[in-house]
């Protein structure tokens, strides 16, 4: 056995590209394990765990690209490393604008006639700089990247507001602009419901359910998770709300968020009160007192239901698969008591934690509702546990579970072997950016989990909600059928799935408690809605995108027929922090 590595100094490739290289190289003959990662400390730690450490790997820095293999022989290692380099050197194709791949946002904006939005998904430490370049080039920004410092977020949002530009994010996973799905987003019918969301999978859940309920989406604008915190003060949410208020296609507005800062919520509701359109405020875990055209919603499902009613005058009819909690519970062995939720969507996980508490009491999590329920390690469950497998601890150096189901599959099987587990609760998120066929990956694991439990004398219900539409690239109905075939109990909404899991556990002896909702103060008296003609014209469309970062986003936009130019992005100044600081100073 040999471990061999190649270091490419100051090279950069996006994480998806690297993951694909890693996967392909790992499958080569004679290769036991392979790594293709940037040389961050976290990644080197992972390589060490995988037995892929060499002296060169140890010496690599965060801007160095590491290719490393463990192989049966020198020849196999050499061949694998050669293949890895060839895969990386494979030219990326420009989605539009001919052969030339622009290197900067400014040059891309010039190449793509009508460019009006930059989709930025570069590593967090570079993201603010790229977003600023985009604003300087007069582009609206969807900042997918996370790990952007709070002060950078605030100054970017102030700069955007001063120019009447929309800055969605940072950590904005999802947006839909006039039918174009950006980042992780579902393909939905165009319609009258506009969404402003501080939560990625929250937007996906509401948008999908609105679509499945027979209505459609005008636009879904993401704000990023911190926008409604006090520090940021809802700068993006306010601009987005104002734009939807003025948008002629939008007849109903849905606000989606975890509980906002009370003052920010009050301001936002004060603005919403002035919107001459009905507004549904779904601040998960918070109670919004309905008033005038503003209504509250406790769950994402409820927000979607009210929105569909308002938009169509009809009650939505979502797919329904009958499941009887008492009957499931009756088949459990006496040892089986606990729920184990394994989530890929952060907001869906949060909603599940809120709902489950009513049936089973406090739930342990890596993202708990109360700090005293924080798991020591996200990798080990105790009692009732729901984990967000999209949290940093699971995604450093790895793809998000919506893209790469490997970790979740391992965890499903581990939980199935635990005699105390009464029910598994999962989400499956479809749409652009997600795995091309998640059900096919998960189905064998679900089947195996149930069989292993049965062999041990237990009955294991697996409750799954599927977030998506029949127009998504993965096809909703096929996904559902595959999961049902594997023995999963599929539910149309995350709320239904969480309730079902909760009822099963309750029937098996758990007892819930009512959590008093966070009180949102009454709407504040605020000035008039800001006028934002430039953001309005972005909504008037069509959107033309400059993509910087993950190439798959450019591809999915091209697939949708959205004009897009993919920037051949490299870290500024070769990633040299000192030079970057000097350059930033000289640009000030």
């Amino acid at each position, binding site marked *: 056995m040999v471990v061999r590595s190649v270091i490419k100094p100051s090279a950069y490739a996006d994480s998806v590209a690297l993951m694909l290289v890693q996967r392909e190289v790992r499958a080569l003959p004679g290769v036991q394990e392979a790594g293709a990662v940037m040389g961050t400390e976290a990644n080197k730690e992972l390589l060490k765990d995988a037995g892929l450490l060499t002296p060169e790997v140890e010496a690599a820095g965060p801007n160095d690209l590491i290719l490393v293999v463990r192989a049966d022989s020198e020849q196999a290692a050499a061949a694998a490393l050669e293949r890895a380099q060839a895969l990386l050197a494979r030219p990326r194709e420009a989605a539009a604008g001919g*052969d030339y791949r*622009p290197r900067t946002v400014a040059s891309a904006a010039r190449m793509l006639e009508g460019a009006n939005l930059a989709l930025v998904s570069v590593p967090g430490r570079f993201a603010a700089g790229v977003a600023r370049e985009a604003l300087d080039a007069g582009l609206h920004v969807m900042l997918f990247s996370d790990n952007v410092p709070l002060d950078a977020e605030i100054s970017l949002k102030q700069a955007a507001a001063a120019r009447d530009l929309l800055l969605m994010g940072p950590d904005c996973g999802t947006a839909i602009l006039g039918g174009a799905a950006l980042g992780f987003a579902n393909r939905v019918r165009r319609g009258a419901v506009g969404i402003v969301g501080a939560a990625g999978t929250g937007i996906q859940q509401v948008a999908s359910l609105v679509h499945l309920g027979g209505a459609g989406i005008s636009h879904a604008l993401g704000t990023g998770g911190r926008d409604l915190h006090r520090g940021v003060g809802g700068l993006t949410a306010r601009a987005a709300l104002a734009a939807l208020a003025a948008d002629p296609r939008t007849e109903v507005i849905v606000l989606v968020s975890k509980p906002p800062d009370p003052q920010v919520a009050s301001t936002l509701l004060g603005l919403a009160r002035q919107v001459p359109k009905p507004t549904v405020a779904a601040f998960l875990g918070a109670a919004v007192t309905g008033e005038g055209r503003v209504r509250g919603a406790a769950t994402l499902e409820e927000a979607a239901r009210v929105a569909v009613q308002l938009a169509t005058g009809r009650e939505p009819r979502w797919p329904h698969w009958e499941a009887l909690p008492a009957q499931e519970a009756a088949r459990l062995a006496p040892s089986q008591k606990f729920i184990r939720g394994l989530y890929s969507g952060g907001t869906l996980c949060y909603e599940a934690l809120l709902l489950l508490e009513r049936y089973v009491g406090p739930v342990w999590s890596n993202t708990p509702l109360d700090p005293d329920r924080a798991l020591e390690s996200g990798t080990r469950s105790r009692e009732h546990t729901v984990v967000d497998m999209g949290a940093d601890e699971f995604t450093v150096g790895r793809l998000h579970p919506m893209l790469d189901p490997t970790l979740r599959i391992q965890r499903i099987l581990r939980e199935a072997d635990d005699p105390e587990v009464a029910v598994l609760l999962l989400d499956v998120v479809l749409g652009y950016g997600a795995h091309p066929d998640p059900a096919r990956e998960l189905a064998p694991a679900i089947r195996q989990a149930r069989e292993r439990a049965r062999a041990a004398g237990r009955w294991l219900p697996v409750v799954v909600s599927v977030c998506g539409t029949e127009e998504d690239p993965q096809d909703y109905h096929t996904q559902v059928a595959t999961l049902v075939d594997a023995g999963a109990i599929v539910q149309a909404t995350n709320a239904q799935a969480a309730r079902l899991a909760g009822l099963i556990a309750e029937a098996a002896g758990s007892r819930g408690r009512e959590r008093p909702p966070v009180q949102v103060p009454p709407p504040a008296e605020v000035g008039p809605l800001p006028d934002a003609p430039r953001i309005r014209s972005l909504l008037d469309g069509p959107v033309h995108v400059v993509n910087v970062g993950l190439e798959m986003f450019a591809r999915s936009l091209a697939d949708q027929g959205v004009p897009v130019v993919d920037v051949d992005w490299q870290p500024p100044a070769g990633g040299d922090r000192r030079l970057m600081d000097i*350059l930033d100073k*000289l640009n000030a």
Partner: protein
Amino acid sequence: MGTIDDANRVAVQRILDSQPVLAGVAPAGEVIPGMRRNLILHAGPPITWERMSGPLRGAVIGALLFEGLAADERQAVALVERGEVDFAPCHHHQAVGPMAGVTTASMPVYIVENRPFGTRAFSTLNEGYGKVLRYGAYSEDVLSRLRWLRDVAGPLLGRALERAGGLDMKALMARQLTMGDEGHNRNVAGSALFARLLAPHLARSGPVDDVAAVMTYLAENDLAVLNPVMAACKATLDAAHGIPRSTVVTCMARNGTDFGIRVSGLGDAWFVAPAEVPVGLFFPGYTQEDANPDIGDSTITETAGIGGFAMAAAPAIVKFVGGTPAMAVQATLEMYEITVAENPTFAIPQLDFRGTPTGIDIRKVVRTGILPRVNTGIAHRRPGVGQIGAGLVRPPMACFTQAVEAFAAGVE
């Protein structure tokens, strides 16, 4: 105090507003400021004899023989080693020279005047191909060629230019870019235009045999116009030099050992790093191993926004690097990423008459990691062998990072 961007706009506007006119020819000693008999001007940043590469040493020896300061190679070297010869970059004396760039007092030089800004620049007459001083050759045929340039071609061209009332170099360069030249490695069209414009005036400027010889010299030398083009670029960029707070590059030059740049807002300082060896195609019998590190002031063309920056205009020369016409277009598109303006006078037909990328910003180079592209001839590392190929080269990044650091230090 204005911003850096404001300063750069001023600098680049001066480049765009420049009007370089080829006014005449005169002995270097008569027109180049500070020129004297024992002074040898050379290409690139300052360098000592000890560090000079083969071709530059050869050219120095040839120049001393040509000036009659030494009778043979041994004497020439001894003279230098006794410290009796002074060296200075052409750029310190408003001059530019291709390859070794060696210029001495009795050599005839073109005079280019950038009239709106009052800058003047000088360059020697192109010697043609084969064994030539600029590649470090100094055999008798090289020296006799230099004498003919001094005694016949220089005066004749000077009289013709006088009769013509000067020659608008900017118009000539704009035209050659629409005819498949990029103005650095490829000057076929420009040299033909040069000859055509001068012909009626040459015909009246001397004895018919001399006229015929000069016409033949122009007809046989596709690089004839390179030297006046370089001087035109130099006179243009000198007008943009010395703008406080400007980060625009006003000079890129190589001496065969080092690559150096100067920046508009950073005074007379050079930012220097070891020159790279160009990569390209070699004449039969030569390989990459024989190549000297990058040499010559001709990078003044790229600095002014032509040459490698106008590659899209000259698809024929991509064969030097085994490329395709599409790559030529990409090369120019890439240079827009590091420049602050486009020169509408130099419109590239292949890019829908978009102006050439103009005004290299050191900040953009360091930020993007994109180095300027330079098209260049390749010299043999041994003196006297001459040109062995042509290809592409880029400056070392260290020149630009040093300049950015110096700039930041000055801003504090």
